[in-house]
């Protein structure tokens, strides 16, 4: 079980890395329009 003493801090670090990714996603507006972007690819310009 000693490995948990390494894994738990690592997991906590990983949380912050993932949160960083989510921050990027929100700030670039990835969640602003969930419907239209999906259908836009099907429409002609």
């Amino acid at each position: 079980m000693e490995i948990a003493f390494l894994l738990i801090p690592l997991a906590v670090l990983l949380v912050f890395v993932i949160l960083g990714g989510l921050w990027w996603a929100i700030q670039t507006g990835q969640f602003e329009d969930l419907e239209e972007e999906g259908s836009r690819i099907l429409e002609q310009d």
Partner: protein
Amino acid sequence: MANPLAASSANPWQGLDIQSEWERFSQRDASAAEVWTSHVWVDNMHCAACSGRIEQTIKQQRGVLAVQASAASKRVRVVWDAKQTSPSSWFANLNEIGYPALPLNEYNAISDRTVQQRKMLWRLVVAVFCMMQVMMYAYPTYWSDSNDMAPDMVQLMKWASWVLTLPVMLFSATPFLSQAWVSLKQRQLGMDVPVSLGIMTAFVMSTLATFAPGGWWGDVVYYDSLTMFVSFLLIGRWLDVKLRNRTAGALENMMRRLPHAVLKKNADGEWVQIAASNINVGDVLYVRPGEVFAADGLVMVGSTSADESMLTGESEPVLKPVGAKVIAGAGNLTSAIEMQVEQVGEGTQYHALVNLMASASTEKPGIALLADKVAQPFLWAVLLAAIYAVIFWWNTDPAKAIMSAVAVLVVTCPCALSLATPAAMLASAGTFAKGGVLIRRLQAIQAISEVDTIVFDKTGTLTENLQQVTLVETHAQWDRQWLLDVIASMSRDSLHPVAQALHAFALQHDAQDQLLLQDWQEIVGGGMSATIVTKAGEAVRVTLGNAEFCGIAHEAADALRQVYVATGEVQLARLTLTEQVKPHAKAAISQLIAHGLDIQLLSGDRIAPVKNLAAQLGIERAFGLQKAADKLQHVKLLQQQGRKVLMVGDGLNDGPVIAAAHTSIAMGSGVPLTQAQADMVVLGNDIGVLVSLISHCQKTILIVKQNLLWAALYNAAGVPLAIMGLLPAWLAGLGMAASSLLVLLNALRLTDWDKSGWQKGQA
């Protein structure tokens, strides 16, 4: 546009004190020259207690005549006197009490809302993500015996949970904490105070248990309950933000209709592009088809047709020859024109409409006023209950005492109570707006749900403005079918409703509309003329229009509308136009009667046609020859009998009646919205909407009552349990979040509006 807030000085709002700046978000009062009504946006106004505090504080300012704050739409309406105060002073005042405001002009609000929405989502994501991790570390301690895990492993998990709770405390929960701090500094009680007290206490207790276990605070940690509580609070706020943005979005879609840049003729006669905000009265603008008119004005060169449906409800395109008035916000449909500007900005009918909608969304319905009233005493009761829980348990177990108090604070979080009414009302108002029904006062929803008698006006309400055509007589020496061909051909290219009715009528009678017309002309308010070659090969000038236009003597007294075909002064044919009952009128009336409403018909028209119409529609009580005073008398009589009367009319000619009636709806196309005095305005012509409108209003009030009942029951059950210590902190958080979500989701049911008829599932 320069941001007026960018100016840095002692009072950062001084920039707003120039009249041209405050005019961007204010409107001059019609009666008093120096009195202005301003709309501002207050972002962190979340609950009934906040809006109450804003109203209280600003009202005390000298020169502020009235304040109306709506937590549901985050708008504050301030009526103020320019002689006694200036916008900067009450803006500064709002800032002092912790509610920084933004002038509600479109650009600020839109970009601000995007930023705001992203930030809220980010707070929510951080809280939920950290909560999930904390749960993972909390889980083993719940389900293992105390000997299963090594003590240093348990300690490591506590530390990890603490690290993961930090971002939630320091970032996600800051809106609640800072808002609570501000209201404490003001020595006032907002909904965030008990919430923050609960969050802080739980965090301090858990931190002590983590880093200094063994004190009176015990060694139990509550990181899981804490992060969950914050997450649920944020989910409630997030849904709240989305719901508001949907309503605000509908408003802004209207405001964004006007173009930002226009083509203006400069002194040299060249076209230059200028910003729409720089248009002045007297400018000549070039408007291409497909564009929206940026200002009110007159057509100078060219002729076109305009879509004014958004402003007048008139669904037909309106012909705009040289000299015709065009209005801002209407769409230019057919061809490019030059126009001279007569009115810009706040003076236009379009702006009056936007302001109308804005003030409707800040007005508080009666039920919401009740919530405001109970908010403060309720919060005090909550704090007292929490203190009582601490005293009650302190001698037995201090840790349990503190956590029971936390449970009381958390479980009573009054989000549900303060959301109950505005969420439902706004959801309905937004739905109505999408379906072409504008609400002037939110109270109208409540009022309409209570009516038992509906009084209809006739013309334009139950009958079409478009008329039914009958060909009465034709000249004996002219071929009847050829005359029909003439009528069809001449009326073919006109957009006037009468001409379109004639065209449709002629085609129904097998006419061809392909005759060769030379010099076809249309004169507004008269008719059309053209030169046509007859069957005999002779070219004649033919006129189609009213008697005056055709040069024919006529009897003025006849109630029916007459249209003539003539050449020279010889009458070739005479047609009459009669009123036609609206397509869904009969079905609508019978549905309303079936649902127990008493329907009456009051009209200024002669008795015979009124009775006739009433018989057609199945209305038992119909009264003709009613002048405005008679109608008023009639409605008052009904009210003396204890009836709640809904008046449905064109909203124009019935001013006093509408004011006297319990509530009113203006129907029908062609009604200038700004003059309509009705509580609701139905755009378009479909009377069938009325049935589902009334049933939807009843459904809205039903949902408001459900919401209020639920919030009350939930608190009545939760508080005693929490004081008795039977409610762990996490369950209290779950209950609070569930009740808020339930209220919001219940309100979201109102966004479905089935316009086809009486909605099922009603009491």
